[in-house]
Protein backbone atom coordinates (compact mmCIF):
# COMPACT_ATOMS: atom_id res chain seq x y z
CA UNK A 1 0.00 0.00 0.00
CA UNK A 2 1.09 3.57 -0.60
CA UNK A 3 0.68 6.52 1.76
CA UNK A 4 1.10 10.29 1.53
CA UNK A 5 -0.27 13.40 3.18
CA UNK A 6 -2.50 14.02 0.13
CA UNK A 7 -6.26 13.68 0.48
CA UNK A 8 -8.04 10.67 -1.01
CA UNK A 9 -9.47 13.01 -3.65
CA UNK A 10 -5.95 13.92 -4.79
CA UNK A 11 -5.08 10.22 -4.96
CA UNK A 12 -8.12 9.64 -7.16
CA UNK A 13 -7.26 12.42 -9.60
CA UNK A 14 -3.55 11.50 -9.75
CA UNK A 15 -4.62 7.93 -10.45
CA UNK A 16 -7.00 9.03 -13.20
CA UNK A 17 -4.72 11.59 -14.82
CA UNK A 18 -1.34 9.88 -14.63
CA UNK A 19 -0.89 6.58 -12.80
CA UNK A 20 -3.54 4.67 -14.74
CA UNK A 21 -1.68 5.71 -17.92
CA UNK A 22 1.56 4.22 -16.57
CA UNK A 23 0.07 1.02 -15.18
CA UNK A 24 -2.44 -0.83 -17.36
CA UNK A 25 -5.54 -1.57 -15.29
CA UNK A 26 -4.55 0.95 -12.63
CA UNK A 27 -2.78 0.74 -9.29
CA UNK A 28 -3.67 -2.60 -7.65
CA UNK A 29 -3.13 -1.48 -4.05
CA UNK A 30 -4.73 1.11 -1.74
CA UNK A 31 -3.45 4.71 -1.73
CA UNK A 32 -3.76 5.99 1.82
CA UNK A 33 -4.26 9.53 3.05
CA UNK A 34 -2.13 10.61 6.02
CA UNK A 35 -3.40 14.17 6.49
CA UNK A 36 -1.30 15.85 9.18
CA UNK A 37 1.41 13.21 8.85
CA UNK A 38 0.62 11.38 12.09
CA UNK A 39 1.18 7.95 10.60
CA UNK A 40 4.38 9.23 9.00
CA UNK A 41 5.59 10.53 12.37
CA UNK A 42 5.13 7.13 13.98
CA UNK A 43 7.11 5.57 11.12
CA UNK A 44 9.81 8.26 11.27
CA UNK A 45 9.26 9.55 7.74
CA UNK A 46 7.37 12.82 8.35
CA UNK A 47 9.30 15.95 7.37
CA UNK A 48 7.91 18.66 9.66
CA UNK A 49 9.45 21.52 7.67
CA UNK A 50 7.92 20.42 4.38
CA UNK A 51 4.78 18.94 5.93
CA UNK A 52 5.00 15.73 3.91
CA UNK A 53 5.92 12.08 4.34
CA UNK A 54 9.26 11.45 2.61
CA UNK A 55 10.08 8.25 0.71
CA UNK A 56 10.06 5.44 3.24
CA UNK A 57 9.44 1.77 2.56
CA UNK A 58 8.58 -0.85 5.17
CA UNK A 59 8.35 -4.60 4.64
CA UNK A 60 5.89 -6.10 7.12
CA UNK A 61 5.59 -9.88 7.57
CA UNK A 62 2.36 -11.89 8.08
CA UNK A 63 2.73 -11.51 11.88
CA UNK A 64 2.71 -7.71 11.51
CA UNK A 65 6.42 -7.38 12.28
CA UNK A 66 8.61 -4.92 10.36
CA UNK A 67 11.41 -6.93 8.72
CA UNK A 68 13.02 -4.22 6.60
CA UNK A 69 12.88 -0.48 6.10
CA UNK A 70 14.45 2.05 3.76
CA UNK A 71 14.05 5.81 3.97
CA UNK A 72 15.40 8.24 1.38
CA UNK A 73 14.99 11.97 0.80
CA UNK A 74 12.57 12.95 -1.99
CA UNK A 75 14.77 13.43 -5.12
CA UNK A 76 15.99 9.83 -5.43
CA UNK A 77 13.49 7.17 -6.47
CA UNK A 78 13.36 3.66 -5.13
CA UNK A 79 14.85 0.43 -6.45
CA UNK A 80 11.87 -1.86 -6.78
CA UNK A 81 14.05 -4.87 -7.72
CA UNK A 82 15.81 -4.67 -4.36
CA UNK A 83 12.48 -4.45 -2.55
CA UNK A 84 11.28 -7.59 -4.34
CA UNK A 85 14.59 -9.36 -3.66
CA UNK A 86 14.34 -8.57 0.05
CA UNK A 87 10.76 -9.74 0.16
CA UNK A 88 11.70 -13.07 -1.45
CA UNK A 89 14.66 -13.42 0.92
CA UNK A 90 12.54 -12.84 4.03
CA UNK A 91 9.91 -15.23 2.72
CA UNK A 92 12.60 -17.87 2.20
CA UNK A 93 14.04 -17.31 5.69
CA UNK A 94 10.58 -17.56 7.23
CA UNK A 95 9.86 -20.82 5.40
CA UNK A 96 13.20 -22.60 5.86
CA UNK A 97 15.04 -21.06 8.84
CA UNK A 98 18.09 -20.67 6.60
CA UNK A 99 19.79 -17.29 6.22
CA UNK A 100 20.62 -15.51 2.99
CA UNK A 101 24.12 -14.06 2.49
CA UNK A 102 24.87 -10.66 0.98
CA UNK A 103 23.72 -10.43 -2.63
CA UNK A 104 21.50 -13.50 -2.39
CA UNK A 105 18.99 -14.05 -5.18
CA UNK A 106 16.29 -16.73 -5.33
CA UNK A 107 17.89 -20.05 -6.32
CA UNK A 108 21.33 -19.03 -5.02
CA UNK A 109 23.02 -20.82 -2.07
CA UNK A 110 21.82 -20.01 1.44
CA UNK A 111 23.64 -20.52 4.73
CA UNK A 112 22.68 -22.73 7.65
CA UNK A 113 23.90 -21.01 10.80
CA UNK A 114 25.60 -23.21 13.41
CA UNK A 115 28.91 -24.10 15.05
CA UNK A 116 30.20 -25.85 11.90
CA UNK A 117 29.81 -22.68 9.82
CA UNK A 118 31.44 -20.28 12.27
CA UNK A 119 34.73 -19.08 10.78
CA UNK A 120 34.11 -21.14 7.63
CA UNK A 121 31.86 -18.83 5.64
CA UNK A 122 34.87 -18.02 3.43
CA UNK A 123 34.70 -21.58 2.08
CA UNK A 124 31.14 -21.25 0.80
CA UNK A 125 30.74 -17.54 0.09
CA UNK A 126 33.04 -15.31 -2.00
CA UNK A 127 32.92 -11.50 -2.15
CA UNK A 128 31.97 -11.51 -5.84
CA UNK A 129 28.72 -13.23 -4.83
CA UNK A 130 27.65 -9.93 -3.26
CA UNK A 131 27.09 -8.35 -6.66
Amino acid at each position, binding site marked *: *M*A*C*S*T*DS*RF*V*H*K*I*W*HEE*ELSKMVPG*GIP*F*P*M*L*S*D*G*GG*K*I*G*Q*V*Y*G*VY*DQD*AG*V*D*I*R*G*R*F*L*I*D*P*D*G*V*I*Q*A*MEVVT*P*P*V*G*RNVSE*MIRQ*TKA*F*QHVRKTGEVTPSGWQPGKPTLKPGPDLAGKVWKVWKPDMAF
Partner: protein
Amino acid sequence: MAEAKDGCVTPAKGPILKPEGQPSTPSQAYKEEPKMIAQVGKPAPDFEASAFFEGGFKSIKLSDYKGKWVILCFFPGAFTFV
Protein backbone atom coordinates in the same frame (compact mmCIF):
# COMPACT_ATOMS: atom_id res chain seq x y z
CA MET B 1 -17.05 0.53 -1.00
CA ALA B 2 -19.10 3.05 0.99
CA GLU B 3 -21.53 4.99 -1.19
CA ALA B 4 -23.45 8.26 -0.85
CA LYS B 5 -22.46 9.15 2.73
CA ASP B 6 -19.03 10.42 1.78
CA GLY B 7 -18.31 13.95 3.01
CA CYS B 8 -15.67 16.58 2.40
CA VAL B 9 -13.61 15.62 5.41
CA THR B 10 -13.23 12.16 6.89
CA PRO B 11 -11.25 12.23 10.12
CA ALA B 12 -8.34 9.85 9.68
CA LYS B 13 -7.95 7.75 12.77
CA GLY B 14 -4.24 7.64 12.10
CA PRO B 15 -1.91 5.69 14.36
CA ILE B 16 -3.59 3.32 16.79
CA LEU B 17 -1.34 3.01 19.82
CA LYS B 18 -2.19 1.18 22.99
CA PRO B 19 -2.20 3.35 26.12
CA GLU B 20 -0.43 1.62 29.02
CA GLY B 21 -2.39 -1.38 30.22
CA GLN B 22 -5.49 -0.66 28.16
CA PRO B 23 -6.86 -2.36 25.11
CA SER B 24 -6.57 -0.34 21.93
CA THR B 25 -9.65 0.81 20.06
CA PRO B 26 -9.83 3.29 17.20
CA SER B 27 -11.41 5.87 19.52
CA GLN B 28 -8.19 5.82 21.51
CA ALA B 29 -6.19 6.83 18.46
CA TYR B 30 -3.20 8.96 19.29
CA LYS B 31 -4.26 12.58 19.85
CA GLU B 32 -0.92 14.16 20.68
CA GLU B 33 2.39 14.45 18.84
CA PRO B 34 3.21 10.90 17.84
CA LYS B 35 6.79 9.77 18.25
CA MET B 36 8.65 7.44 15.95
CA ILE B 37 8.30 3.89 17.16
CA ALA B 38 8.83 1.89 13.96
CA GLN B 39 11.80 -0.47 14.30
CA VAL B 40 12.88 -3.54 12.40
CA GLY B 41 12.08 -6.73 14.27
CA LYS B 42 9.26 -5.00 16.17
CA PRO B 43 5.52 -4.92 15.46
CA ALA B 44 4.54 -2.38 12.81
CA PRO B 45 2.54 0.44 14.45
CA ASP B 46 -1.10 -0.08 13.55
CA PHE B 47 -3.12 2.67 11.87
CA GLU B 48 -6.34 3.34 10.04
CA ALA B 49 -6.59 5.78 7.15
CA SER B 50 -9.00 6.71 4.41
CA ALA B 51 -7.82 5.54 1.03
CA PHE B 52 -8.48 5.47 -2.68
CA PHE B 53 -8.70 1.85 -3.79
CA GLU B 54 -10.32 0.01 -6.69
CA GLY B 55 -12.00 3.13 -7.99
CA GLY B 56 -13.59 4.20 -4.71
CA PHE B 57 -12.91 5.43 -1.21
CA LYS B 58 -12.53 3.10 1.73
CA SER B 59 -10.98 2.90 5.16
CA ILE B 60 -7.84 0.78 5.39
CA LYS B 61 -6.49 -0.66 8.63
CA LEU B 62 -3.01 -2.18 8.68
CA SER B 63 -3.91 -4.92 11.16
CA ASP B 64 -6.58 -6.21 8.74
CA TYR B 65 -3.65 -7.41 6.61
CA LYS B 66 -2.32 -9.83 9.26
CA GLY B 67 -1.42 -13.09 7.55
CA LYS B 68 -0.16 -11.31 4.43
CA TRP B 69 3.11 -9.71 3.47
CA VAL B 70 2.66 -5.93 3.29
CA ILE B 71 4.86 -3.32 1.67
CA LEU B 72 4.07 0.11 3.06
CA CYS B 73 5.47 2.93 0.92
CA PHE B 74 5.36 6.56 1.96
CA PHE B 75 5.82 9.20 -0.72
CA PRO B 76 5.99 13.02 -0.62
CA GLY B 77 2.92 13.60 -2.71
CA ALA B 78 0.98 13.06 -5.89
CA PHE B 79 2.68 14.30 -9.06
CA THR B 80 6.15 14.44 -7.43
CA PHE B 81 8.12 13.35 -10.49
CA VAL B 82 10.27 10.38 -9.35
